[in-house]
């Protein structure tokens, strides 16, 4: 791997940037790996990276149906925060946020992590009470989150209208200052480059079509469009397609796959300094470094694999944005798209063992997986390497739907999860 540094940048600039080369190899699959990861999104690549760096397991393949950065990793609204209500979720997302804070240096790759703050607006008494509860719960868990009056919200985010004349008046907000955004596909590229450098094979255009089990029921490898690949352990990290993959091993999952849409506007000069979320009207908004307003919509009401979603869903989101920020009513939207997210009944992920020996799963991140990428990969690598969960992902078992120990962020996080 060619490291990025001031000297390498200077020397390449003199050579017209012709000497950078590929950031990761395009290897032929080997007949067998110690660990095969199905799904080359951010979570899968992070898992491979931490398997290699933390646990010294480098005989690893990451199988990707499409191309790196082409799935949900490149489709989200790039928001990173850790102000979750319940202890289990708070520990998970805070673990991720701490890794985000050093990730560009760790990967030697600029993921453009920007801790510009996430401000969650309260529009009614219920919001105020609920967010204050979140603030207190977060502080008990050592996570920064503070309550701002509406004047303090205005000072932090000048585009806000706090006059009270809006249909949804701003009564205050909860601000996590360490939260922010990152360049989403750079995260996938950075992890891919780092993992590849340590010997991990990243195999693109390789779709898994079956999971082979031996006479004792153990998973022993995967059938793919590029032939059979044997595996000591298999980690399925496939977001919306997890149900489909797990059914190949005869495991039915408590998951439903929904389209989730996002859209961006034409690029404009810097006008919006932070991330603003409004759960009550279901809108969230930030401005990318390119100048586009990045807007996230809600999921469609029915399960689908169409990667499109209904136009009325995005229209509804834009209604909410225009209601909150009338100054954006004349902005033109450039692109909209959908990704397929896997949603669990309690809106918390499943990370750990499955009933099939040697088959592990990391799924159910629903509409909020991007922010967890480093933490998810880190604890899943631990689970794959040792065969037992890390203490942070221990509560996120598949078995919790049998025992009843749910982590019910569905109720806690309202809508914008």
């Amino acid at each position, binding site marked *: 791997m060619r490291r990025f540094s001031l000297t390498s940048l200077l020397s390449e600039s003199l050579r017209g940037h012709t000497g950078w080369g590929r950031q990761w190899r395009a290897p032929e699959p080997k007949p067998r790996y110690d660990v095969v990861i199905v799904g080359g999104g951010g979570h899968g690549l992070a898992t491979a990276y931490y398997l290699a760096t933390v646990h010294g397991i480098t005989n690893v393949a990451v199988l990707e149906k499409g191309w790196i950065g082409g799935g949900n990793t490149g489709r989200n609204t790039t928001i990173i925060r850790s102000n979750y209500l319940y202890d289990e979720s708070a520990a998970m997302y805070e673990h991720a946020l701490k890794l985000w804070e050093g990730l560009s240096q760790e990967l030697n790759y600029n993921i453009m992590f920007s801790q510009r703050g996430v401000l969650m607006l309260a529009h009614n008494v219920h919001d105020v009470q609920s967010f204050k509860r979140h603030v207190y719960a977060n502080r008990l868990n050592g996570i920064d989150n503070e309550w701002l009056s509406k004047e303090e919200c205005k000072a932090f985010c000048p585009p806000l209208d706090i006059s009270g004349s809006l249909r949804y008046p701003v009564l205050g907000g909860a601000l996590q200052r360490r939260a922010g955004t990152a360049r989403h596909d750079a995260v996938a590229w950075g992890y891919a480059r780092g993992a590849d450098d340590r010997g991990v094979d990243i195999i693109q255009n390789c779709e898994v079509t079956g999971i082979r089990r031996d006479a004792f029921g153990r998973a022993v490898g995967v059938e793919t469009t590029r032939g059979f690949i044997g595996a000591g352990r298999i980690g399925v990290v496939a977001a919306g*397609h997890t149900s*489909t993959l797990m059914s190949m091993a005869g495991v039915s999952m*408590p998951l439903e796959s929904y389209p989730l849409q996002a859209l961006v506007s034409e690029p404009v000069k810097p006008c919006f300094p932070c991330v603003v979320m409004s759960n009550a009207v279901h809108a969230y908004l930030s401005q990318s470094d390119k100048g586009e307003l990045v807007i996230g919509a809600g999921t469609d009401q029915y*399960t689908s*694999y*169409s*990667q499109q979603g*209904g136009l009325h869903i995005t229209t509804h989101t834009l209604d909410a944005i225009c209601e909150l920020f009338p100054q954006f009513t004349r902005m033109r939207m450039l692109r909209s798209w959908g990704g397929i997210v896997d949603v669990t009944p309690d809106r918390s992920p499943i990370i750990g063992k499955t009933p099939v020996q040697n088959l592990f799963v990391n799924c159910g991140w629903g509409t909020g997986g991007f922010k967890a990428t480093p933490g998810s990969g880190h604890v899943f690598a631990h689970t794959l390497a040792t065969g037992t969960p890390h203490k942070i992902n221990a509560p996120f078992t598949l078995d919790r739907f049998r025992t*009843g120990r749910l982590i019910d962020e569905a109720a806690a996080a309202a809508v914008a999860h």
Partner: protein
Amino acid sequence: MLLIACPHCGKRPETEFRCGGQAHIARPADPMTVDDGAWSEHLFVRANPKGVHAERWCHVHGCGRWFNALRDTISDRFIETYPMGAKPTQFPQSETRA
């Protein structure tokens, strides 16, 4: 936006309807004999197929009645709608591939 054929009202836009999730889920007949695993299956595990899916829909902003539908989850095309309590007349394989 999808056009959905309500069995009672005919084709109407999707925004008039609410999706009620997977159809034909039967509550365990004798709940006292069901163990935790089977309850978990009943409460939480859903088919989530990539292909043809049987669902319940309600025409909330119309006649207000529930009905069943077969929909291809890859193309989102509705194959058939049929009344509650009935079975679909056809159950084709998915005709599309994402």
